[in-house]
């Protein structure tokens, strides 16, 4: 809503017209000022002049010589426009004047005749685009006045953001009413008396749809002359962002901006049988709306029709057929009250948003139509002449009367903490033009324009708002002690571990495409194919929710690769969505949180001349080990696995507390190719919740002060035996004594035989309370070999 301060002065005398001050007042009232635009007179030396006489130019046919007076001795100018006659009031630029764009007016000789000054067009004054003729002023314009006065310049236009609960503020009157409450000054309602006659009305109005239309007021105007509005009206409409059209149409818009009631003007002679019918559209009925679109209507649409056809979408947009045109002589003015949801859905359905629909969809005062119709009638008579019956048509299908809300003062204290003195409450409400009765509780009468005030809390807001949010002190409630939960602290630890390992955290959109499902070649029954679809997607990229974090992570690798960052490790924590009921609320899809990572190129230390280690499966398992170590996870192991999208020989299933929580490994080369990635890509994806589950509290194991004994054993084992199994099984021989067991060599050779490999392990044993004897060491060694033998291993160099 754009508000001109000059126009606002019709409604209220502001104590301080400084736009900064008004801006502060409006912000404090909740009418947010988005911007303030200063409208300046972009010229100097322009005055109101009168054309005293006109004579032909002796040497040219297309121009005339005009004697123009601005109160002093007339001067003669050459003028090429023909849209005025002797006696016309014009905007006259005297010699030395500077017009829009720095154009200076001098004395010139045109075809042998001296011309001292210029009669200006709208465009030359920077007021509009019209350059067909010169700007002709109202006949009562005062000769000799600076032209800037006539067009109300300088002016400030405040662009206000009106909240959706306050349609009553969407007018000059509404804004004036708020400011009047703020400054405690009166406001004015513009005159609306119609000097009509006692003729009978000729139009009939029938409201067939009482759910959509609460009230319909119509007025008639005959023998009007349709022409451009006076400059002031046009300037005010332009400042408000509305294009001037003709006096009749301009008045409907002007009064809407004044009072907040959208209006429509019909050409009386084009309404079949002089009938206006409010009804639902027939399915398939067509209407050519003012924007030139031929629309097909449905039974959900509410139309204003004549006896034959729809002539407008109620409260939204008129139709081209019954529109007021240059030939119009007789006019019917419509001011109606429409059901807000009906207009809202209609304007959404037809994608039309107009000044009218913006107001009706929020709710216009249902009792405003009579005043607005009369005000429009009066203004039209002023601007277009003609005559009107005094009477108007007023069809009321649902009467709205003011409600009463009871406000106990204790309720004000309870929510506002006693900051506003009880004695002030009544006065604050009265400043808003609300009628207040009683002492405590207060009985507050709510005018029908304020349908946002229904309950005590709504009135408490009004009290606080007018008292001024700035006037409230600051306090802090004394709540209980706060704190993070274990899992939230572990969430942070997890992120610190991963960033410490060199990974960056990414956040991707929660959507993925069918391409992703194909790239990962999920089998038909795979969980990742249980996608949840958006029923109203904006486009195909935002149509399907992700079932895995990996596609997003791979696209991010590709994005960075394209920008020269090929060595990159990233992780993401976020929800995926599976089309199955969620245990926490089975009305919703399963939406577990996952942790995913992807790494390309190189990760880790690099030395001059020796690049960092290229990424491969071991990067993925290392990241898991770092994570498990950092989070204190103990009971886990990795097992060979071949999930969809991963390299079948270089991927591990992550088992935590005996449960599969996800996978880490290398991306399948074809999957990598589908994302435009080359080389080995380390990836992993797992459930987040098990990682954050609390771990047991550690008890200190006193470091032993006795010496350790280290020895190496080399086992020959079947090819398919994972080294991890051999390590785990042999460690169990003496869990308490075995400090470490590490694989230090893996060897294959003809002497071992086909299908066999050698694994060399270095063990370190240490007792908490004594130094090992030679016998003990021999015994440990023997038990290790025996445990390994159970897995099919023999000590290298021995015969199996």
């Amino acid at each position, binding site marked *: 809503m754009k508000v001109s301060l000059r126009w606002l002065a019709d409604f209220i005398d502001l104590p301080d017209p400084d736009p900064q001050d008004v801006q502060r007042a409006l912000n404090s009232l909740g009418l947010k*000022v988005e911007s303030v635009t200063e409208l300046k007179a972009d010229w100097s030396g322009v005055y109101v002049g009168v054309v005293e006489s006109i004579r032909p130019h002796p040497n040219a046919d297309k121009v005339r010589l005009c004697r123009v007076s601005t109160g002093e001795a007339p001067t003669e100018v050459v003028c090429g426009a023909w849209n005025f006659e002797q006696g016309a009031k014009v905007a006259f630029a005297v010699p030395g004047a500077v017009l829009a764009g720095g154009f200076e007016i001098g004395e010139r000789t045109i075809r042998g005749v001296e011309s001292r000054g210029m009669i200006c067009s709208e465009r030359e004054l920077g007021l509009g685009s019209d350059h067909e003729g010169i700007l002709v002023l109202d006949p009562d314009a005062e000769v000799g006045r600076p032209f800037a006065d006539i067009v109300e310049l300088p002016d400030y236009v405040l662009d206000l953001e009106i909240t959706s609960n306050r349609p009553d503020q969407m007018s000059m009157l509404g804004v004036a009413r708020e400011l009047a409450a703020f400054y405690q000054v009166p406001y004015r309602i513009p005159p609306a008396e119609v000097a009509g006659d006692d003729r009978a009305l000729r139009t009939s109005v029938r409201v067939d749809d009482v759910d959509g239309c609460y009230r319909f007021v119509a007025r008639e105007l005959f023998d009007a002359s349709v022409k451009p509005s006076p400059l002031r009206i046009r300037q005010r409409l332009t400042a408000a962002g509305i294009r001037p059209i003709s006096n009749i149409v301009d008045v409907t818009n002007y009064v809407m901006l004044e009072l907040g009631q959208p209006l429509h003007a019909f050409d009386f002679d084009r309404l079949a049988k002089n009938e206006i019918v409010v009804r639902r559209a027939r399915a398939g009925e067509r209407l050519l709306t003012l924007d030139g679109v031929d629309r097909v209507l449905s039974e959900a649409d509410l139309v204003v029709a004549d006896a034959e056809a729809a002539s407008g979408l109620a409260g939204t947009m008129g139709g081209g057929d019954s529109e007021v045109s240059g030939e119009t002589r007789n006019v019917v003015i419509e001011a109606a009250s429409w059901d807000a949801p009906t207009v809202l859905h209609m304007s959404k359905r037809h994608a039309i948003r107009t000044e009218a629909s913006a107001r009706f969809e929020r709710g216009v005062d249902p009792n405003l139509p009579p005043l607005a119709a009369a005000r429009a009638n009066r203004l039209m008579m002023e601007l277009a002449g003609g005559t009107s019956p005094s009477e108007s048509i007023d069809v009321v299908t649902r009467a709205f009367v003011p409600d009463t809300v009871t406000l106990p003062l204790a309720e004000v204290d309870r929510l506002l903490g006693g900051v506003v003195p009880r004695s002030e409450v009544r006065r604050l409400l009265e400043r808003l033009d609300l009628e207040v009765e009683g002492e405590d509780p207060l009985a507050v009468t709510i005018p029908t324009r304020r349908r946002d005030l229904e309950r005590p809390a709504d009135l408490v807001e009004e009290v606080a708002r007018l008292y001024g949010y700035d006037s409230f*002190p600051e306090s*802090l409630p004394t709540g209980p002690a706060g704190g993070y939960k274990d899992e939230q602290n572990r969430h942070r630890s997890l992120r610190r571990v991963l960033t410490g390992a060199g990974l960056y955290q990414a956040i991707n959109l929660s959507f993925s495409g069918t391409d992703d499902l194909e790239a990962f070649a999920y089998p038909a029954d795979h969980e990742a194919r249980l996608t949840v679809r958006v029923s109203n997607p904006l486009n195909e990229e935002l149509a399907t929710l992700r079932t895995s974090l990996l596609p997003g992570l791979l696209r991010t690798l590709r994005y960075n690769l394209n920008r020269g960052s090929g060595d990159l490790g990233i992780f993401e924590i976020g929800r995926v969505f599976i089309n199955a009921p969620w245990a926490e609320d089975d009305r919703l899809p399963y939406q577990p949180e996952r942790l995913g990572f992807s790494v390309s190129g190189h990760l880790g230390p690099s030395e001059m001349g020796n690049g960092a280690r290229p990424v491969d499966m071991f990067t993925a398992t290392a990241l898991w080990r770092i994570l498990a170590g950092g989070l204190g996870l103990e009971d886990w192991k990795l097992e060979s696995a071949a999930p969809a999208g991963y390299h079948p020989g270089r991927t591990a299933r992550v088992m935590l507390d005996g449960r599969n929580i996800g996978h880490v490994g290398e991306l399948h080369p074809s999957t990598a190719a589908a994302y435009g990635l080359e080389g080995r890509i380390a990836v992993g994806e797992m459930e987040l919740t098990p990682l954050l589950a609390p771990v047991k509290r550690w008890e200190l194991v006193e470091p032993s002060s006795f010496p350790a004994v280290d020895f190496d054993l080399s086992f020959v084992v079947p090819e398919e035996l994972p080294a991890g199994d051999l390590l785990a099984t042999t460690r169990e021989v003496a869990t308490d004594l075995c400090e470490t067991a590490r694989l230090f060599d893996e060897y294959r050779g003809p002497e071992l035989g086909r299908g066999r490999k050698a694994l060399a392990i270095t063990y370190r044993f240490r007792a908490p309370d004594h130094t090992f004897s030679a016998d003990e060491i021999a015994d440990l060694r023997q038990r290790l070999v025996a445990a390994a033998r159970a897995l099919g291993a023999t000590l290298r160099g021995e015969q199996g």
Partner: protein
Amino acid sequence: MNLHEHLASAEAAIQAVKTLGDLNELETKLLGRNSPVGEARRQLGKLDPGDRPAAGVEVNRVTAELNRLIAERRGELTRVEENLLLADDSVDVTVERWTLSQGTEHLVQQTIDEVCDIFIGLGYRVEQGPEAELAWFNFDALNTPPHHPSRFESDTLYLDFGDPADEVLLRTHTSPMQVRYMQSHKPPLYVVVPGKTFRSDTIDASHLPVFHQIEGLAVDSGIVFSDLKGTLAHFAREFFGREQRVRLRPSFFPFTEPSAELDVSCFVCGGASASCRLCGGSGWLEMAGCGMVDPNVLDMAGHDSQTLSGFAFGMGVERLAMVRHGISNIRVFIDNDLRALRQFR
């Protein structure tokens, strides 16, 4: 040569020595059996008994002095030789031979953590809620009228899931968690809820279809409007800096009454520039929506709006980060460009 002269010439010789080896040789020469000191010690027995004590003292004095000078010189030479060795061991410290990289957390994550930390300090807990949510929690329970424009398909993403009567959607704000939390917890309630939110928007410099909010809710007996103001003012000063001014400006949300917007003074121009790129000249930056919990919301969540009161607020995480870090294009949050990610430590 008397001992006095010997000491004087020895001092010069000690200072002249350049290596530890030469110093060792010199030490033998100056203090050995055949040195003037050794000679003087041997001669002591031959002196008159009356002269012996004085001569003895003199021999000891010179010996001690020589030892001191030699030890001092030895210390000096040791340091010189060590420095020579270290000099041979020096490298160009500006060369990066070996490095361990350190990643970063996403700026959105860092911002969420920081905001949550502030509220933890005020006695809050942190919760998170479902992203695929029931329309009832997202709209109805938050007092949104059945025909409110926010419900339109042009704004909200609905999901094909389950019973159509349940209307499942991608939550458009973190506010539904207000209701879920109120339903499952007894007052006093002090909670913040960070999380993803969704709108039907195409991606451009100022819109993302997926973004983040942080919701706050306090429900207790005796909570008043000033508590809301004090809480958000405290937050704003902690997050944006103690020197920032804050104001509450009346606004409207269906689920709060009274409602307000939290504005923070512009930290680029402080309101001094009419053409400020950050605030556009208003001097204020809109940072959060807030208000006293609407009585209908309390009632619908099963609490008594007659005895309890509370406040709620919601803020955009990307917005907080953009304002604070001078980010003009919101796409930076989903591009995950390493060159941007690594800037926020």
